[in-house]
């Protein structure tokens, strides 16, 4: 039975369980529902729950794990000499999978007799042509090894599916019966159901953990396999980035990328922090209610605009504008529209509302008593802001700036479109440079083989990015939390 059909069966069983369980509960009290511990529906839910949940959990696990195990067993059949690295094996295994699926399709469409499977061999049949007739296109002719592996793959998968069907149905049935026989007036069905619901709630909450785990694991595994092919020291301390180097002479040093990232972030923060901070101070300390009601949402519109828009803005508006001033016609500092300045400036605009609304919150959290104390001593408003409010809010503002920095470092679209593609260690902000995020995109969307160091380096870059932003975020959250406690 296929997984989806199995799921449907369990669902039917659960629906049936609801009706039967509810009926049994009512019958146990001769229809007098007041004598039940819980409302009748809860008895029904209890039966459906026990029939459905454990079986589906097993089903899901099985569907995930079985291909892995089958793959493991079958890949042992591929002779070690026919591929040179893990990537090669992966390619072969995906061929095996496709051939196996193709054979299934061929049998289903009648292009191949079931009995013919046993004698099937590359010598007596053109497998590629056969599968082509049933709509499964293969890139190359099928070798004997692949075919036998595919047959094995099919066989194991079929056996696995049979066992899965049996196991899942048994579990569903057992759950159903156990709940059914326990159904009685005194059964605390509501409590059981509520405990079940709570489990679901916990499961939903755990997705946050699973996501983080998924991120960390996918980064770690691929990073480790990258460092298996490329020395870690060269990656961390290399001063050149040129993955297209000929004959294995590629240089994948991260430092130029990090420099580009940091340089652009500095430019962005140099725009966003003063503007955002002054805007926040003005809005929270000076502006009247009306100005605030207009200016604050308008500034926040900047935060709601997707980054792709900023990217295009950098590429087609800001870049050419900068070239007019700093390019060959003007000061001659700038070669093309893409530069650190272009990306940094636009990123700064994007971050203005981020800095201003975070700082606004933080400035508002400074107690009015502080301001009163200062005014009471005859301080002007700006003296109060500069010498009392801002110092009091400083930790929070530092936290906000760190969060903004983490945003800047992780920003992708603006740098992909506005910063350029050349990795460079230069001080000139009008030169094109590239960043960690931009290179993650270019390495993973290029046509490099997925198992090659050129593609895998993206995961090491992602790891670096993740660690950097995580560090900044945690630091910022700690600072902000500490700051909040100070005034609570």
């Amino acid at each position, binding site marked *: 039975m296929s997984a989806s059909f199995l799921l449907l069966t369990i669902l039917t069983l659960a629906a049936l369980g609801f009706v039967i369980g509810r009926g049994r509960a009512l019958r146990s009290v001769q229809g007098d529902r007041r004598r039940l511990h819980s409302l009748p529906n809860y008895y029904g839910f209890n039966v459906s729950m026990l029939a459905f949940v454990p079986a589906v959990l097993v089903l899901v696990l099985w569907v995930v794990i079985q291909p892995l195990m089958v793959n493991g067993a079958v890949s042992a059949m591929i002779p070690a000499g026919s591929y040179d690295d893990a990537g090669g094996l992966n390619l072969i295994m995906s061929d095996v999978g496709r051939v196996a699926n193709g054979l299934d399709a061929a049998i289903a469409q009648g292009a191949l007799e079931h009995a013919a499977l046993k004698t099937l061999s590359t010598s007596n049949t053109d497998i590629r042509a056969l599968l082509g007739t049933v709509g499964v296109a293969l890139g190359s002719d099928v070798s004997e090894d692949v075919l036998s592996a595919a047959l094995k793959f099919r066989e194991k998968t079929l056996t696995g599916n049979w066992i899965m069907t049996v196991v899942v149905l048994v579990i569903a049935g057992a759950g159903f019966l156990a709940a059914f026989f326990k159904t009685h007036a005194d059964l605390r069905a509501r409590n059981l159901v509520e405990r079940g619901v709570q489990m679901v709630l916990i499961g939903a*909450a755990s997705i946050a953990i699973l*996501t983080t785990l998924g991120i960390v694991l996918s980064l770690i595994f691929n990073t480790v396999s990258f460092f298996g092919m490329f020395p870690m020291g060269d990656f961390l301390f290399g001063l050149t980035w040129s993955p297209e180097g000929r004959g294995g002479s590629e240089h994948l040093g991260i430092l130029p990328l990090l420099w580009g990232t940091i340089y652009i972030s500095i430019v962005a923060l140099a725009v966003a922090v003063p503007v955002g901070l002054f805007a926040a101070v*003005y809005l929270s300390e000076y502006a009247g209610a009306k100005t605030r009601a207009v200016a604050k949402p308008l500034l926040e*519109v900047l935060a709601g605009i997707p980054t792709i828009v900023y990217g295009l803005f950098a590429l087609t508006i800001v870049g050419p504008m900068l070239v007019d001033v700093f390019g060959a016609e003007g000061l001659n500092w700038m070669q093309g529209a893409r530069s650190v300045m272009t990306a940094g400036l636009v990123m700064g605009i994007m971050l203005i509302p981020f800095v201003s609304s975070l700082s606004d919150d933080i400035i508002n959290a400074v107690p009015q008593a502080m301001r009163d104390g200062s005014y009471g001593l005859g301080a002007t408003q700006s003296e109060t*802001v500069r010498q009392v409010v801002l110092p009091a809010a400083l930790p929070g503002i530092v936290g906000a700036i760190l969060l903004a920095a983490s945003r800047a470092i992780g920003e992708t679209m603006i740098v992909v479109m506005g910063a350029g593609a050349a990795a460079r260690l230069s001080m000139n902000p009008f030169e094109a440079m590239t960043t960690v995020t931009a290179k993650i995109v270019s390495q993973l969307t290029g046509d490099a083989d997925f198992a090659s160091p050129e593609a895998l380096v993206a995961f090491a870059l992602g790891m670096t990015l993740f660690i950097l932003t995580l560090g900044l975020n945690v630091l910022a959250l700690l600072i902000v939390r500490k700051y909040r406690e100070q005034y609570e």
Partner: protein
Amino acid sequence: MTDMTANGVPEATPHAKSSLLTQDAHTKQRNAAEKRFRIYGITAIAIGLVFLVLLISSILFKGVGAFQQTKLTLQVELLEAKLDKSGTRDIEKIKKVTTFGYNPLIDTAIKRALEEGGIENPFSKGKDLRKLLSSGAAAQIREFVVANPDRIGDTVEFKLLASSRVDGYLKGRVSRESLARDKNLTPVHLDMVDQMRETGVVNKGFNLSFITGADASESRPEQAGIGVSMLGSFYMMLVVLTAALPIGVAASIYLEEFAKQNWFTDLIEVNISNLAAVPSIVFGILGLAVFIQFAHLPQSAPLVGGLVLTLMTLPTIIISTRASLKAVPPSIREAALGVGASKMQTVFHHVLPLAMPGILTGTIIGLAQALGETAPLLLIGMVGYIASNPPEGLIDGFLSPNSAMPAQIYEWAKRADPAYYERAWGGIIILLLFLMTMNIIAILLRRRFERRW
């Protein structure tokens, strides 16, 4: 903070018996600093607003062009001799005629239009004349013929897409100077276009196919539309909505109403606040590694895009949902618990319905964020793919490769032809219209149901 007057050590003022009615020098200095400070604040806000205006006006200025397209109105005679030599109207045979076979018809039609308008034809070759038209024009006629084989032999009026250079000339993007080194069109063509405009053959009109159409190959920007990728975005949003809303609400209910203070809860909390700040590209890496590499889901599929965006928006939804749950006053919970409802019943019967408007508002804002996100989609292959056919049916919509609006915009922005920039800006207008609508709905929802306890 450039102003140091207050921190410096100024001269001591004879402070004791000054009149209140006159300002002493020091006070004047301080008031000047005050004024300066206020000006900095106003300047900062002005800078922010100027950027906003610049951004919006350049979007409108650059993008509105995409909603108009230049077309040539031509009388095309569907010659039986060319299209259906046998005269049997056998559809299979008609289909065998490639677009190449339609070119002579177009040549004749253009020449006829020129003659009727009294315009001199400087070109001897039909190939040069056809440069006025999109290379998709022949396909447009062929499509019509295949759909209406009985019209073969008639003369039918077609509105055929002009080539992107001609379109650009009418929109001011292309000039005689810029054509100097262009192989696709010559200034002589532009002279013809000028005359053809006077005779009404060349017209600029509303471009519906930009909104409903599919992407086109790199050489035919005049044909590219955002419709199919809009569907891609739509299917992704369906995935996000159906996955993120229930999971987000369930997680928030647990954290806000049931979770006890322990290491597990702390772990979840820390994870959520960190995920909210993880760069979106990292979610793309996650999607690539887990959904495509590990789970072998199809590349470029809206399903995968939707799942990645779900994980990305979950923290946003959880944070806003928790805020709305928190806003329901404890007295409501106490009232329900007081009449003997269980904790679970209290939450599902009373707290959740009351928090619903807030939850929906947060969800819509999360969806808007997901709709505009590009970076993770690049990694799971939703760029570089030309989505030329709208999906057939729901399953196909989720599983077959497609693009999404922001990915499509990025794809256009990457292409060399500047005509695609106009498409990209036009796409941005549509994307922003969607985002604006969603945000307005969220605001209205908040206004309509906002409750002050």
